[in-house]
Protein backbone atom coordinates (compact mmCIF):
# COMPACT_ATOMS: atom_id res chain seq x y z
CA UNK A 1 0.00 0.00 0.00
CA UNK A 2 1.13 3.50 -0.70
CA UNK A 3 0.43 4.81 2.78
CA UNK A 4 2.34 1.87 4.27
CA UNK A 5 5.32 2.89 2.20
CA UNK A 6 5.24 6.48 3.34
CA UNK A 7 4.97 5.32 6.95
CA UNK A 8 7.89 2.96 6.38
CA UNK A 9 9.95 5.85 5.07
CA UNK A 10 9.06 8.00 8.05
CA UNK A 11 9.99 5.17 10.42
CA UNK A 12 13.29 4.60 8.66
CA UNK A 13 14.09 8.27 8.92
CA UNK A 14 13.28 8.30 12.64
CA UNK A 15 15.32 5.15 13.12
CA UNK A 16 18.32 6.71 11.43
CA UNK A 17 18.03 9.81 13.60
CA UNK A 18 17.50 7.92 16.85
CA UNK A 19 19.75 9.04 19.67
CA UNK A 20 22.47 6.58 20.48
CA UNK A 21 25.94 6.61 21.90
CA UNK A 22 28.75 5.76 19.53
CA UNK A 23 30.97 5.01 22.48
CA UNK A 24 28.63 2.39 23.93
CA UNK A 25 28.13 0.88 20.49
CA UNK A 26 31.84 0.61 19.72
CA UNK A 27 32.55 -0.65 23.21
CA UNK A 28 30.04 -3.45 22.82
CA UNK A 29 31.58 -4.41 19.46
CA UNK A 30 35.07 -4.32 20.98
CA UNK A 31 33.93 -6.47 23.88
CA UNK A 32 32.39 -9.08 21.60
CA UNK A 33 35.53 -9.09 19.48
CA UNK A 34 37.82 -9.59 22.47
CA UNK A 35 35.59 -12.35 23.83
CA UNK A 36 35.60 -14.14 20.48
CA UNK A 37 39.38 -13.76 20.13
CA UNK A 38 39.91 -15.01 23.68
CA UNK A 39 37.95 -18.16 23.06
CA UNK A 40 39.70 -18.75 19.73
CA UNK A 41 43.27 -17.97 20.73
CA UNK A 42 43.32 -19.17 24.33
CA UNK A 43 44.08 -22.88 23.65
CA UNK A 44 40.94 -23.84 25.50
CA UNK A 45 39.92 -26.65 23.18
CA UNK A 46 43.04 -28.72 22.82
CA UNK A 47 42.23 -32.35 22.17
CA UNK A 48 43.56 -33.56 25.48
CA UNK A 49 40.85 -31.84 27.53
CA UNK A 50 39.02 -35.12 27.93
CA UNK A 51 41.55 -37.76 27.02
CA UNK A 52 41.72 -41.04 28.89
CA UNK A 53 44.50 -40.04 31.22
CA UNK A 54 42.69 -36.93 32.41
CA UNK A 55 39.50 -38.87 33.03
CA UNK A 56 41.37 -41.52 35.01
CA UNK A 57 43.05 -38.76 36.95
CA UNK A 58 39.66 -37.22 37.70
CA UNK A 59 38.22 -40.51 38.86
CA UNK A 60 41.14 -41.13 41.20
CA UNK A 61 40.93 -37.57 42.49
CA UNK A 62 37.24 -37.91 43.30
CA UNK A 63 37.88 -41.14 45.20
CA UNK A 64 40.65 -39.55 47.18
CA UNK A 65 38.34 -36.78 48.37
CA UNK A 66 36.72 -39.34 50.70
CA UNK A 67 38.40 -39.27 54.13
CA UNK A 68 41.29 -41.72 54.06
CA UNK A 69 40.16 -44.01 56.92
CA UNK A 70 36.83 -44.41 55.17
CA UNK A 71 38.15 -45.27 51.74
CA UNK A 72 37.13 -48.74 50.64
CA UNK A 73 34.74 -49.42 53.51
CA UNK A 74 31.24 -48.60 54.65
CA UNK A 75 30.61 -45.14 56.09
CA UNK A 76 31.06 -44.95 59.83
CA UNK A 77 30.33 -41.79 61.83
CA UNK A 78 32.80 -42.62 64.59
CA UNK A 79 35.72 -42.97 62.19
CA UNK A 80 34.74 -39.88 60.20
CA UNK A 81 34.43 -37.72 63.32
CA UNK A 82 37.70 -39.06 64.66
CA UNK A 83 39.44 -38.12 61.41
CA UNK A 84 37.83 -34.69 61.42
CA UNK A 85 38.67 -34.05 65.04
CA UNK A 86 42.31 -34.95 64.54
CA UNK A 87 42.81 -32.57 61.64
CA UNK A 88 40.94 -29.77 63.39
CA UNK A 89 42.90 -30.21 66.59
CA UNK A 90 46.24 -30.52 64.80
CA UNK A 91 45.92 -27.43 62.65
CA UNK A 92 42.34 -26.66 61.60
CA UNK A 93 41.24 -24.44 64.50
CA UNK A 94 44.57 -22.73 64.76
CA UNK A 95 44.62 -22.05 61.01
CA UNK A 96 41.11 -20.62 61.10
CA UNK A 97 42.03 -18.31 63.97
CA UNK A 98 45.17 -17.07 62.25
CA UNK A 99 43.32 -16.49 58.99
CA UNK A 100 40.62 -14.52 60.74
CA UNK A 101 43.23 -12.48 62.62
CA UNK A 102 45.03 -11.69 59.34
CA UNK A 103 41.84 -10.36 57.79
CA UNK A 104 40.97 -8.25 60.83
CA UNK A 105 44.46 -6.81 61.24
CA UNK A 106 44.64 -5.99 57.54
CA UNK A 107 41.27 -4.26 57.32
CA UNK A 108 41.81 -2.23 60.49
CA UNK A 109 45.19 -1.14 59.18
CA UNK A 110 43.74 -0.31 55.78
CA UNK A 111 40.73 1.44 57.25
CA UNK A 112 42.80 3.71 59.50
CA UNK A 113 45.46 4.62 56.95
CA UNK A 114 43.02 5.06 54.06
CA UNK A 115 41.45 7.98 55.96
CA UNK A 116 44.53 10.09 55.28
CA UNK A 117 44.49 9.27 51.58
CA UNK A 118 40.75 9.85 51.43
CA UNK A 119 41.20 13.44 52.56
CA UNK A 120 44.06 14.01 50.15
CA UNK A 121 42.22 12.46 47.22
CA UNK A 122 38.91 14.29 47.69
CA UNK A 123 38.79 17.08 45.13
CA UNK A 124 36.41 19.16 47.23
CA UNK A 125 38.81 19.26 50.18
CA UNK A 126 42.22 19.14 48.52
CA UNK A 127 42.00 22.50 46.85
CA UNK A 128 42.86 26.10 47.62
CA UNK A 129 39.35 26.89 48.82
CA UNK A 130 37.68 23.74 50.14
CA UNK A 131 33.92 23.48 49.53
CA UNK A 132 33.53 27.00 48.23
CA UNK A 133 32.19 27.30 44.70
CA UNK A 134 34.56 30.10 43.67
CA UNK A 135 37.89 30.98 45.30
CA UNK A 136 37.68 33.81 47.80
CA UNK A 137 40.32 36.32 46.87
CA UNK A 138 43.29 35.55 44.73
CA UNK A 139 45.40 32.45 44.91
CA UNK A 140 48.70 32.04 43.23
CA UNK A 141 48.93 29.70 40.29
CA UNK A 142 51.60 27.86 42.20
CA UNK A 143 49.30 27.07 45.11
CA UNK A 144 46.56 25.84 42.82
CA UNK A 145 48.85 23.56 40.87
CA UNK A 146 50.38 22.25 44.08
CA UNK A 147 46.95 21.12 45.29
CA UNK A 148 46.15 19.68 41.89
CA UNK A 149 49.39 17.72 42.07
CA UNK A 150 48.56 16.38 45.55
CA UNK A 151 45.24 15.02 44.30
CA UNK A 152 46.74 13.59 41.13
CA UNK A 153 49.61 11.83 42.89
CA UNK A 154 47.35 10.44 45.63
CA UNK A 155 44.87 9.13 43.09
CA UNK A 156 47.57 7.60 40.92
CA UNK A 157 49.05 5.89 43.93
CA UNK A 158 45.65 4.57 44.98
CA UNK A 159 45.08 3.17 41.49
CA UNK A 160 48.48 1.51 41.58
CA UNK A 161 47.82 0.00 45.01
CA UNK A 162 44.54 -1.54 43.92
CA UNK A 163 45.73 -2.59 40.47
CA UNK A 164 48.28 -4.96 41.97
CA UNK A 165 46.47 -8.00 43.42
CA UNK A 166 46.86 -8.91 47.10
CA UNK A 167 48.53 -12.16 46.14
CA UNK A 168 51.27 -10.41 44.15
CA UNK A 169 51.87 -7.90 46.94
CA UNK A 170 52.11 -10.77 49.42
CA UNK A 171 54.53 -12.71 47.20
CA UNK A 172 56.84 -9.72 46.83
CA UNK A 173 56.66 -8.62 50.48
CA UNK A 174 57.20 -12.14 51.83
CA UNK A 175 60.47 -12.39 49.97
CA UNK A 176 61.53 -8.89 50.90
CA UNK A 177 60.50 -8.90 54.57
CA UNK A 178 60.88 -12.58 55.39
CA UNK A 179 58.24 -14.99 56.59
CA UNK A 180 55.99 -13.55 59.28
CA UNK A 181 52.45 -12.25 59.44
CA UNK A 182 53.61 -8.77 58.47
CA UNK A 183 53.94 -9.22 54.69
CA UNK A 184 50.55 -10.93 54.44
CA UNK A 185 48.79 -8.29 56.50
CA UNK A 186 50.58 -5.47 54.69
CA UNK A 187 49.76 -6.95 51.29
CA UNK A 188 46.07 -7.14 52.12
CA UNK A 189 46.16 -3.69 53.67
CA UNK A 190 47.93 -2.08 50.70
CA UNK A 191 45.42 -3.36 48.17
CA UNK A 192 42.49 -2.35 50.37
CA UNK A 193 43.90 1.12 51.00
CA UNK A 194 43.71 1.54 47.24
CA UNK A 195 40.05 0.51 47.14
CA UNK A 196 38.84 2.12 50.37
CA UNK A 197 40.67 5.34 49.52
CA UNK A 198 38.92 5.63 46.19
CA UNK A 199 35.44 4.73 47.49
CA UNK A 200 35.69 7.01 50.53
CA UNK A 201 37.03 9.92 48.49
CA UNK A 202 33.90 9.65 46.35
CA UNK A 203 31.74 9.68 49.49
CA UNK A 204 33.48 12.81 50.76
CA UNK A 205 33.11 14.51 47.39
CA UNK A 206 29.40 13.74 47.32
CA UNK A 207 28.66 15.11 50.79
CA UNK A 208 26.23 18.04 50.85
CA UNK A 209 28.55 21.03 50.86
CA UNK A 210 26.46 23.72 52.55
CA UNK A 211 27.46 22.90 56.14
CA UNK A 212 31.08 22.32 55.18
CA UNK A 213 31.28 25.57 53.28
CA UNK A 214 29.84 27.54 56.19
CA UNK A 215 32.39 25.94 58.53
CA UNK A 216 35.11 26.99 56.16
CA UNK A 217 33.61 30.45 56.04
CA UNK A 218 33.95 30.61 59.83
CA UNK A 219 37.65 30.05 59.37
CA UNK A 220 37.99 26.36 60.25
CA UNK A 221 41.10 24.63 59.00
CA UNK A 222 40.95 21.62 56.68
CA UNK A 223 41.74 19.24 59.53
CA UNK A 224 39.10 20.83 61.73
CA UNK A 225 36.50 20.46 58.99
CA UNK A 226 37.54 16.87 58.46
CA UNK A 227 37.31 16.00 62.14
CA UNK A 228 34.22 17.97 63.05
CA UNK A 229 32.05 17.63 59.97
CA UNK A 230 33.28 15.30 57.25
CA UNK A 231 33.95 12.26 59.42
CA UNK A 232 30.65 12.30 61.32
CA UNK A 233 28.71 12.84 58.08
CA UNK A 234 30.53 10.22 56.05
CA UNK A 235 30.95 7.66 58.80
CA UNK A 236 27.97 5.38 58.07
CA UNK A 237 28.97 4.96 54.42
CA UNK A 238 32.62 4.49 55.32
CA UNK A 239 31.68 1.79 57.81
CA UNK A 240 29.61 0.04 55.15
CA UNK A 241 32.60 -0.01 52.82
CA UNK A 242 34.83 -1.12 55.68
CA UNK A 243 32.73 -4.20 56.35
CA UNK A 244 32.19 -4.93 52.69
CA UNK A 245 35.96 -4.93 52.19
CA UNK A 246 36.45 -7.00 55.32
CA UNK A 247 34.44 -9.77 53.63
CA UNK A 248 36.88 -9.78 50.73
CA UNK A 249 39.79 -9.68 53.17
CA UNK A 250 38.56 -12.89 54.79
CA UNK A 251 38.28 -14.41 51.32
CA UNK A 252 41.80 -13.42 50.34
CA UNK A 253 43.25 -14.39 53.73
CA UNK A 254 42.23 -17.99 53.11
CA UNK A 255 44.65 -18.24 50.18
CA UNK A 256 47.52 -15.95 51.08
CA UNK A 257 48.94 -18.63 53.39
CA UNK A 258 49.78 -20.62 50.26
CA UNK A 259 52.82 -18.39 49.93
CA UNK A 260 54.34 -19.77 53.11
CA UNK A 261 52.91 -18.14 56.23
CA UNK A 262 51.24 -20.72 58.46
CA UNK A 263 47.50 -20.19 58.10
CA UNK A 264 44.68 -21.89 56.24
CA UNK A 265 46.21 -21.51 52.78
CA UNK A 266 49.52 -22.90 54.02
CA UNK A 267 47.92 -26.17 55.15
CA UNK A 268 45.92 -26.43 51.96
CA UNK A 269 49.09 -26.08 49.95
CA UNK A 270 50.84 -28.51 52.27
CA UNK A 271 48.11 -31.13 51.87
CA UNK A 272 48.18 -30.63 48.14
CA UNK A 273 51.95 -31.09 48.01
CA UNK A 274 51.60 -34.31 50.01
CA UNK A 275 48.72 -35.41 47.70
CA UNK A 276 46.44 -35.77 50.74
CA UNK A 277 43.36 -34.65 48.90
CA UNK A 278 40.82 -35.58 51.58
CA UNK A 279 42.47 -33.22 54.02
CA UNK A 280 42.93 -30.54 51.38
CA UNK A 281 39.25 -30.70 50.56
CA UNK A 282 38.26 -30.50 54.21
CA UNK A 283 40.43 -27.42 54.72
CA UNK A 284 38.97 -25.77 51.63
CA UNK A 285 35.48 -26.38 53.00
CA UNK A 286 36.59 -24.93 56.35
CA UNK A 287 37.75 -21.83 54.49
CA UNK A 288 34.36 -21.63 52.76
CA UNK A 289 32.64 -21.86 56.14
CA UNK A 290 34.83 -19.06 57.46
CA UNK A 291 33.96 -16.88 54.49
CA UNK A 292 30.24 -17.58 54.86
CA UNK A 293 30.48 -16.74 58.56
CA UNK A 294 32.30 -13.49 57.73
CA UNK A 295 29.64 -12.59 55.15
CA UNK A 296 26.94 -13.21 57.71
CA UNK A 297 28.56 -11.11 60.44
CA UNK A 298 29.24 -8.33 57.98
CA UNK A 299 25.68 -8.39 56.65
CA UNK A 300 24.29 -8.17 60.18
CA UNK A 301 26.57 -5.29 61.17
CA UNK A 302 25.84 -3.42 57.94
CA UNK A 303 22.13 -3.82 58.54
CA UNK A 304 22.62 -2.45 62.07
CA UNK A 305 24.48 0.57 60.73
CA UNK A 306 21.98 1.16 57.95
CA UNK A 307 18.95 1.01 60.21
CA UNK A 308 20.49 3.52 62.56
CA UNK A 309 21.19 6.25 60.18
Amino acid at each position, binding site marked *: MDTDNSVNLAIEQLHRQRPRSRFVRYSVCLMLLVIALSWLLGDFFTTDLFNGRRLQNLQRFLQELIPYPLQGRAFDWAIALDWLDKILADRGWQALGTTLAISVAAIVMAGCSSLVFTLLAARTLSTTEPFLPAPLGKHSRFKQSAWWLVVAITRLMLIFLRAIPEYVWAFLLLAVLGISAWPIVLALALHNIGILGKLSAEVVENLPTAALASLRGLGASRLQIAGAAIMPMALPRLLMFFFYRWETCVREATVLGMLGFVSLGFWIQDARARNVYDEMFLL*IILGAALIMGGDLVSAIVRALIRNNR
Partner: protein
Amino acid sequence: MIRLSRRRWVIITILIAGLWSCVALDLNPAGLAIGAGGLGLAGEFFTHALHPALQYESAVPAGTIPILLRSLQAAWWTLIFATTAISLAVAIGMLLGFTASTAWWSEDLTARDTTWRRIITAYLAPAIYGSTRILINLMRSIHELLWAVLLLAAFGIHHMGAAIAIAIPCGGTLAKIFAEMIDETPRDAALAMRDAGATPLQIYFIGLLPRALPDIAAYTLYRFECALRTSAVLGFFGFPTLGFYIAASFENLHYAEVWTYLYVLFGLVALVDWWSGKLRRNMLLWTQTTA
Protein backbone atom coordinates in the same frame (compact mmCIF):
# COMPACT_ATOMS: atom_id res chain seq x y z
CA MET B 1 21.06 8.83 71.50
CA ILE B 2 20.81 5.15 70.68
CA ARG B 3 22.05 5.87 67.18
CA LEU B 4 25.27 7.40 68.41
CA SER B 5 26.04 4.74 70.93
CA ARG B 6 25.41 1.88 68.53
CA ARG B 7 27.78 3.31 65.97
CA ARG B 8 30.32 3.91 68.70
CA TRP B 9 30.03 0.29 69.79
CA VAL B 10 30.81 -0.84 66.28
CA ILE B 11 33.97 1.27 66.22
CA ILE B 12 35.09 0.12 69.67
CA THR B 13 34.57 -3.50 68.62
CA ILE B 14 36.61 -2.92 65.49
CA LEU B 15 39.49 -1.47 67.50
CA ILE B 16 39.43 -4.30 70.04
CA ALA B 17 39.35 -6.84 67.21
CA GLY B 18 42.29 -5.07 65.61
CA LEU B 19 44.27 -5.25 68.85
CA TRP B 20 43.39 -8.90 69.33
CA SER B 21 44.55 -9.73 65.80
CA CYS B 22 47.85 -7.90 66.29
CA VAL B 23 48.51 -9.86 69.46
CA ALA B 24 47.44 -13.15 67.88
CA LEU B 25 49.70 -12.63 64.87
CA ASP B 26 52.56 -11.26 66.94
CA LEU B 27 52.61 -8.07 64.90
CA ASN B 28 54.99 -5.60 66.49
CA PRO B 29 56.71 -2.81 64.60
CA ALA B 30 60.10 -4.26 65.48
CA GLY B 31 59.23 -7.47 63.67
CA LEU B 32 58.88 -5.55 60.46
CA ALA B 33 62.56 -4.68 60.35
CA ILE B 34 63.92 -8.09 61.24
CA GLY B 35 63.27 -10.17 58.15
CA ALA B 36 65.35 -12.54 56.11
CA GLY B 37 66.84 -9.72 54.09
CA GLY B 38 66.00 -6.94 56.49
CA LEU B 39 65.35 -3.42 55.38
CA GLY B 40 68.26 -3.46 52.95
CA LEU B 41 66.55 -5.87 50.62
CA ALA B 42 63.28 -3.99 50.87
CA GLY B 43 65.08 -0.77 50.03
CA GLU B 44 66.79 -2.34 47.07
CA PHE B 45 63.55 -3.77 45.76
CA PHE B 46 61.57 -0.56 46.09
CA THR B 47 64.27 1.69 44.64
CA HIS B 48 63.93 -0.29 41.42
CA ALA B 49 60.41 1.07 41.15
CA LEU B 50 61.95 4.25 39.75
CA HIS B 51 63.78 2.54 36.91
CA PRO B 52 61.94 -0.52 35.58
CA ALA B 53 63.83 -2.65 33.10
CA LEU B 54 63.55 -1.89 29.40
CA GLN B 55 65.91 -4.75 28.61
CA TYR B 56 66.51 -8.11 30.25
CA GLU B 57 68.85 -7.85 33.19
CA SER B 58 70.89 -10.90 32.25
CA ALA B 59 71.89 -12.59 29.04
CA VAL B 60 69.02 -14.38 27.33
CA PRO B 61 69.16 -16.99 24.56
CA ALA B 62 69.18 -15.55 21.05
CA GLY B 63 65.71 -15.16 19.61
CA THR B 64 63.99 -14.33 22.94
CA ILE B 65 61.47 -11.59 22.33
CA PRO B 66 62.26 -8.22 23.97
CA ILE B 67 60.96 -7.76 27.49
CA LEU B 68 58.48 -5.04 26.59
CA LEU B 69 56.95 -7.25 23.94
CA ARG B 70 56.92 -10.18 26.30
CA SER B 71 55.19 -8.16 28.98
CA LEU B 72 52.55 -7.12 26.45
CA GLN B 73 52.15 -10.74 25.45
CA ALA B 74 51.65 -11.68 29.10
CA ALA B 75 49.14 -8.84 29.43
CA TRP B 76 47.28 -10.23 26.41
CA TRP B 77 47.15 -13.66 28.01
CA THR B 78 45.95 -12.07 31.24
CA LEU B 79 43.19 -10.44 29.22
CA ILE B 80 42.35 -13.71 27.44
CA PHE B 81 41.80 -15.66 30.66
CA ALA B 82 39.83 -12.80 32.20
CA THR B 83 37.50 -12.32 29.21
CA THR B 84 36.90 -16.03 28.75
CA ALA B 85 36.16 -16.36 32.44
CA ILE B 86 33.88 -13.35 32.58
CA SER B 87 31.88 -14.52 29.56
CA LEU B 88 31.40 -17.91 31.23
CA ALA B 89 30.56 -16.15 34.48
CA VAL B 90 27.92 -13.96 32.84
CA ALA B 91 26.29 -17.07 31.38
CA ILE B 92 26.34 -18.73 34.81
CA GLY B 93 25.18 -15.50 36.43
CA MET B 94 22.23 -15.06 34.08
CA LEU B 95 21.12 -18.65 34.50
CA LEU B 96 21.51 -18.91 38.28
CA GLY B 97 20.51 -15.29 38.71
CA PHE B 98 17.17 -16.19 37.18
CA THR B 99 16.61 -19.19 39.43
CA ALA B 100 17.86 -17.24 42.47
CA SER B 101 15.40 -14.40 42.00
CA THR B 102 11.83 -14.29 43.22
CA ALA B 103 10.40 -12.04 40.52
CA TRP B 104 9.49 -14.76 38.03
CA TRP B 105 7.30 -16.59 40.51
CA SER B 106 6.27 -13.95 43.02
CA GLU B 107 2.51 -13.88 43.46
CA ASP B 108 1.86 -10.27 42.68
CA LEU B 109 3.42 -10.67 39.23
CA THR B 110 1.44 -13.79 38.44
CA ALA B 111 -1.86 -13.16 36.75
CA ARG B 112 -2.92 -16.67 35.77
CA ASP B 113 -4.26 -18.67 38.62
CA THR B 114 -3.93 -22.16 37.19
CA THR B 115 -3.27 -25.31 39.20
CA TRP B 116 0.16 -25.53 37.59
CA ARG B 117 0.97 -22.02 38.54
CA ARG B 118 -0.08 -22.71 42.11
CA ILE B 119 2.14 -25.79 42.31
CA ILE B 120 5.05 -23.81 40.90
CA THR B 121 4.70 -20.87 43.27
CA ALA B 122 4.04 -23.02 46.32
CA TYR B 123 6.58 -25.83 45.93
CA LEU B 124 8.70 -25.95 42.81
CA ALA B 125 9.96 -22.38 42.65
CA PRO B 126 10.88 -22.11 46.35
CA ALA B 127 12.78 -25.39 46.07
CA ILE B 128 14.67 -24.19 43.00
CA TYR B 129 15.26 -20.84 44.67
CA GLY B 130 16.59 -22.37 47.88
CA SER B 131 18.92 -24.84 46.22
CA THR B 132 20.26 -22.17 43.88
CA ARG B 133 21.02 -19.93 46.85
CA ILE B 134 22.99 -22.74 48.52
CA LEU B 135 24.85 -23.48 45.29
CA ILE B 136 25.67 -19.81 44.75
CA ASN B 137 27.01 -19.50 48.29
CA LEU B 138 29.23 -22.54 47.85
CA MET B 139 30.56 -21.22 44.55
CA ARG B 140 31.27 -17.82 46.01
CA SER B 141 32.86 -18.83 49.25
CA ILE B 142 35.66 -20.90 47.77
CA HIS B 143 38.38 -18.59 46.52
CA GLU B 144 39.31 -18.56 42.83
CA LEU B 145 42.78 -19.84 43.62
CA LEU B 146 41.36 -22.72 45.64
CA TRP B 147 39.10 -23.61 42.73
CA ALA B 148 42.24 -23.52 40.63
CA VAL B 149 43.98 -25.84 43.09
CA LEU B 150 41.03 -28.24 43.01
CA LEU B 151 40.77 -28.20 39.23
CA LEU B 152 44.51 -28.61 38.83
CA ALA B 153 44.45 -31.62 41.10
CA ALA B 154 41.47 -33.07 39.27
CA PHE B 155 42.39 -32.36 35.65
CA GLY B 156 46.04 -31.41 35.60
CA ILE B 157 47.12 -28.13 34.06
CA HIS B 158 44.81 -26.97 31.29
CA HIS B 159 43.82 -23.50 30.16
CA MET B 160 40.15 -24.34 30.48
CA GLY B 161 40.72 -25.14 34.15
CA ALA B 162 42.06 -21.65 34.79
CA ALA B 163 39.12 -20.00 33.06
CA ILE B 164 36.64 -22.15 34.96
CA ALA B 165 38.41 -21.49 38.26
CA ILE B 166 37.85 -17.76 37.81
CA ALA B 167 34.37 -18.23 36.37
CA ILE B 168 32.87 -20.28 39.21
CA PRO B 169 33.13 -17.81 42.12
CA CYS B 170 32.69 -14.87 39.78
CA GLY B 171 29.58 -16.46 38.27
CA GLY B 172 28.19 -17.13 41.74
CA THR B 173 28.68 -13.53 42.76
CA LEU B 174 27.16 -12.24 39.54
CA ALA B 175 24.17 -14.55 40.02
CA LYS B 176 23.60 -13.21 43.52
CA ILE B 177 23.87 -9.58 42.46
CA PHE B 178 21.77 -10.04 39.29
CA ALA B 179 19.01 -11.70 41.29
CA GLU B 180 19.03 -8.94 43.89
CA MET B 181 19.08 -6.17 41.30
CA ILE B 182 16.17 -7.66 39.35
CA ASP B 183 14.15 -8.32 42.48
CA GLU B 184 14.69 -4.76 43.63
CA THR B 185 13.74 -3.18 40.30
CA PRO B 186 10.62 -1.00 40.59
CA ARG B 187 7.62 -3.09 39.69
CA ASP B 188 5.20 -0.47 38.36
CA ALA B 189 5.77 -1.25 34.68
CA ALA B 190 5.78 -4.96 35.50
CA LEU B 191 2.33 -4.66 37.06
CA ALA B 192 1.08 -2.80 34.00
CA MET B 193 2.29 -5.68 31.84
CA ARG B 194 0.59 -8.18 34.12
CA ASP B 195 -2.68 -6.29 33.83
CA ALA B 196 -2.37 -6.37 30.05
CA GLY B 197 -2.14 -10.16 30.25
CA ALA B 198 1.62 -10.77 30.06
CA THR B 199 3.07 -13.95 31.54
CA PRO B 200 5.61 -13.89 34.39
CA LEU B 201 8.44 -14.79 32.01
CA GLN B 202 7.58 -11.91 29.68
CA ILE B 203 7.44 -9.63 32.70
CA TYR B 204 10.80 -10.89 33.98
CA PHE B 205 12.71 -10.59 30.74
CA ILE B 206 11.14 -7.44 29.34
CA GLY B 207 9.57 -5.60 32.26
CA LEU B 208 12.35 -6.05 34.83
CA LEU B 209 15.61 -7.19 33.23
CA PRO B 210 16.09 -4.29 30.77
CA ARG B 211 15.41 -1.81 33.51
CA ALA B 212 18.09 -3.34 35.73
CA LEU B 213 20.49 -3.76 32.81
CA PRO B 214 22.59 -0.60 33.29
CA ASP B 215 23.28 -1.58 36.91
CA ILE B 216 23.93 -5.17 35.91
CA ALA B 217 26.38 -4.09 33.21
CA ALA B 218 28.18 -1.73 35.58
CA TYR B 219 28.61 -4.46 38.17
CA THR B 220 29.80 -6.94 35.55
CA LEU B 221 32.46 -4.46 34.44
CA TYR B 222 33.63 -4.16 38.03
CA ARG B 223 33.82 -7.94 38.27
CA PHE B 224 35.79 -7.98 35.04
CA GLU B 225 38.47 -5.89 36.71
CA CYS B 226 38.58 -8.41 39.55
CA ALA B 227 38.84 -11.26 37.05
CA LEU B 228 41.73 -9.47 35.40
CA ARG B 229 43.65 -9.35 38.66
CA THR B 230 42.92 -12.99 39.46
CA SER B 231 43.97 -13.93 35.95
CA ALA B 232 47.32 -12.25 36.56
CA VAL B 233 47.72 -14.16 39.82
CA LEU B 234 47.03 -17.49 38.11
CA GLY B 235 50.46 -17.04 36.51
CA PHE B 236 51.85 -18.18 39.86
CA PHE B 237 50.29 -21.56 39.13
CA GLY B 238 52.04 -21.91 35.78
CA PHE B 239 49.65 -20.18 33.37
CA PRO B 240 51.30 -17.71 30.96
CA THR B 241 49.85 -14.56 32.51
CA LEU B 242 51.72 -11.66 34.11
CA GLY B 243 52.05 -13.39 37.47
CA PHE B 244 54.21 -16.08 35.91
CA TYR B 245 56.80 -13.55 34.76
CA ILE B 246 56.62 -11.56 37.97
CA ALA B 247 57.42 -14.69 39.96
CA ALA B 248 60.14 -15.85 37.56
CA SER B 249 61.95 -12.50 37.43
CA PHE B 250 61.66 -12.04 41.17
CA GLU B 251 63.14 -15.43 41.89
CA ASN B 252 66.07 -14.55 39.63
CA LEU B 253 66.47 -11.34 41.66
CA HIS B 254 65.75 -9.23 38.55
CA TYR B 255 63.86 -6.58 40.47
CA ALA B 256 63.82 -4.06 37.63
CA GLU B 257 62.08 -6.63 35.41
CA VAL B 258 59.55 -7.28 38.16
CA TRP B 259 58.68 -3.60 38.17
CA THR B 260 58.28 -3.62 34.39
CA TYR B 261 55.67 -6.36 34.68
CA LEU B 262 54.02 -4.64 37.63
CA TYR B 263 53.71 -1.42 35.64
CA VAL B 264 52.24 -3.30 32.69
CA LEU B 265 49.69 -4.91 35.02
CA PHE B 266 48.96 -1.48 36.46
CA GLY B 267 48.55 -0.09 32.95
CA LEU B 268 46.19 -2.88 31.95
CA VAL B 269 43.99 -2.51 35.03
CA ALA B 270 44.04 1.29 34.82
CA LEU B 271 43.06 1.14 31.14
CA VAL B 272 40.14 -1.16 31.82
CA ASP B 273 39.19 0.99 34.82
CA TRP B 274 39.16 4.14 32.71
CA TRP B 275 37.26 2.49 29.88
CA SER B 276 34.62 0.93 32.11
CA GLY B 277 34.11 4.19 33.95
CA LYS B 278 33.52 6.00 30.66
CA LEU B 279 31.22 3.23 29.48
CA ARG B 280 29.19 3.38 32.69
CA ARG B 281 28.68 7.13 32.39
CA ASN B 282 27.73 6.73 28.73
CA MET B 283 25.23 3.99 29.44
CA LEU B 284 23.38 6.14 31.93
CA LEU B 285 23.24 9.14 29.64
CA TRP B 286 23.29 7.65 26.19
CA THR B 287 20.78 10.04 24.76
CA GLN B 288 22.99 13.02 25.38
CA THR B 289 25.70 11.92 22.98
CA THR B 290 23.52 12.00 19.93
CA ALA B 291 25.17 10.43 16.94
